[in-house]
């Protein structure tokens, strides 16, 4: 009976739950879904062909991030800096709502969002990626593939990216000044140093007055607006509210508070999950 009401009148279904202060999946309004993280590097499993990788399972949303480094010429405005190119892929694998074809608007917006997070938080020291100023730098391609779409892909992507970057190591490359030839030393590896760990927290606005943190796909569909706050533990790196219902001051403050809480949770998670295999995919599913 509940399933039929859920299909036929989803808003009513949610309204009845929210009156009691809980959500249909037994979460509080400010609670994140259980998160599992698998981080690996070239030597430490996960994806061994990538320089750094991470798989995150946020409730039922699964995102995998692979970081690959390539050598390239630096951009003319910034000859001593390398650069990062994030790319989010929302393909037909993750949900029936995405059709095969060129990247949808949503995927492109997410890619830009992740790029903004990297730029605003300055978590990677771009000068570290420089090998020979003006001639050769590292380009890090961060490819985030969503495998299972159940809402809040933005938070999952940011967390996966931060986790993957925290365990990425690049081989040392030396450029001979006279001949211009490059020498790659695969045995010697340098780990990327992160200056901070940016973590995001998204809330969905339901019926103008209820804020649901970490919305599922159905909650996103029923919501009237979304707010995303990215923090690095001390500062707010970015705040996004693309349209949607207007919010009062206190509601915004609540979102920001939740973002800081999430940051502590997420950092603990990252430190605990270093160097694991893709066990979330091979181990039995925890009852959701």
């Amino acid at each position, binding site marked *: 009976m509940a399933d039929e009401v859920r299909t036929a009148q989803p808003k009513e279904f949610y309204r009845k739950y929210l009156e009691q202060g809980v959500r249909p999946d037994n979460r509080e309004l400010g609670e994140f879904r259980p998160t599992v993280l698998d981080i690996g590097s070239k030597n430490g499993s996960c994806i061994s*062909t990538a320089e750094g990788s991470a798989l995150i399972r946020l409730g039922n949303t699964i995102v995998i991030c692979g970081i690959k480094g390539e050598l390239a010429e630096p951009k003319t405005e910034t000859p001593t800096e390398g650069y990062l190119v994030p790319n989010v892929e929302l393909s037909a*694998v993750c949900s029936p709502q995405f059709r095969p074809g060129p990247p949808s608007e949503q995927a492109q917006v997410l890619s830009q969002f992740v790029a903004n997070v990297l730029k605003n938080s300055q978590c990677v020291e771009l000068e570290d990626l420089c090998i020979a100023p003006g001639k050769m730098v590292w380009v890090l391609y961060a490819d985030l593939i969503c495998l299972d779409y159940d809402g809040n892909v933005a938070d999952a992507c940011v967390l996966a990216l931060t986790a993957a970057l925290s365990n990425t190591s690049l081989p040392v490359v030396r450029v001979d000044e006279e001949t211009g030839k490059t020498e790659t030393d695969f045995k010697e590896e340098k780990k990327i140093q992160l200056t901070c760990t940016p973590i995001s927290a998204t809330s969905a606005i339901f019926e103008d007055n209820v804020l649901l943190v970490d919305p599922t796909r159905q909650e996103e569909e029923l919501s009237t607006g979304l707010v995303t706050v990215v923090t690095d533990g001390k500062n707010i790196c970015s705040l996004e509210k693309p349209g949607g219902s207007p919010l009062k001051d206190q509601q915004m403050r609540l979102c920001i508070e939740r973002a800081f809480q999430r940051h502590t949770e997420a950092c603990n998670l990252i430190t605990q999950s270093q160097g694991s295999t893709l066990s979330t*995919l091979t181990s039995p599913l925890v009852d959701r």
Partner: protein
Amino acid sequence: MAGVELLSDQGFRIDGRRPHELRKIECRLGVFRQADGSAYIEQGNTKVLAAVYGPHEVRGGRGKALHDKVVVNCQYSMATFSTGERKRRPRGDRKSQEMTMHLQQTFDATILTTLYPRSQIDIFVEVLQADGGNYCASVNAATLALIDAGIPLKDYVCASSAGFVRDTALVDMNHLEESSGGTELIIATLPKSQQIVFLEMNSRLHEDNLSAVMDRAVAGCTDVYNVLDTAVRDHVGETAAAIGGDAA
């Protein structure tokens, strides 16, 4: 002289396997929630995911729907970080298109298509890490995903590859062995009925050696079948008590 490195005098391959040994297979059904059926398989270092959606309404306009059978739509895609060198185009290049077509033809022959007229079944395969045997792992993962989705199949489809080095047939080749330039035979069979659904061979092979290589490959398929069967039975067994079917 590639043969010298690939197979040592004692009969060991580069990764320490014997010529008839498959790589370690680890698999899991029901990995995703959104998809109707999903599976994850690891064959050695090759990691492949498969997701199945359907049967659902045919998309892509009128004319594509078949009045008497289901349309099987496949998509084979490799993650950009799956190979040693970053792959620029995850899908759409010729090799992926070819793989897609092969998968589609293979499963069109195995699914009981007449049960769902005017509908479409989507099979999406995503290669997370490629270390040889991509097509084989894709077929195995897709079979598991179809079983997980509850789509009726004639039988499992198991695939395996085999090569020929220094007068010995090797089964389940990894990337190094594949790219050495020797023969590679990829075969997909229906194990119970011993029928071949797909066969592809690259490079030259003397016809005297063909039967040895084919036998090795078919034996590989049977070994794969045993592993997949155990995984399916475990997965169903976990939920069998809830259904309470009759012992037969």
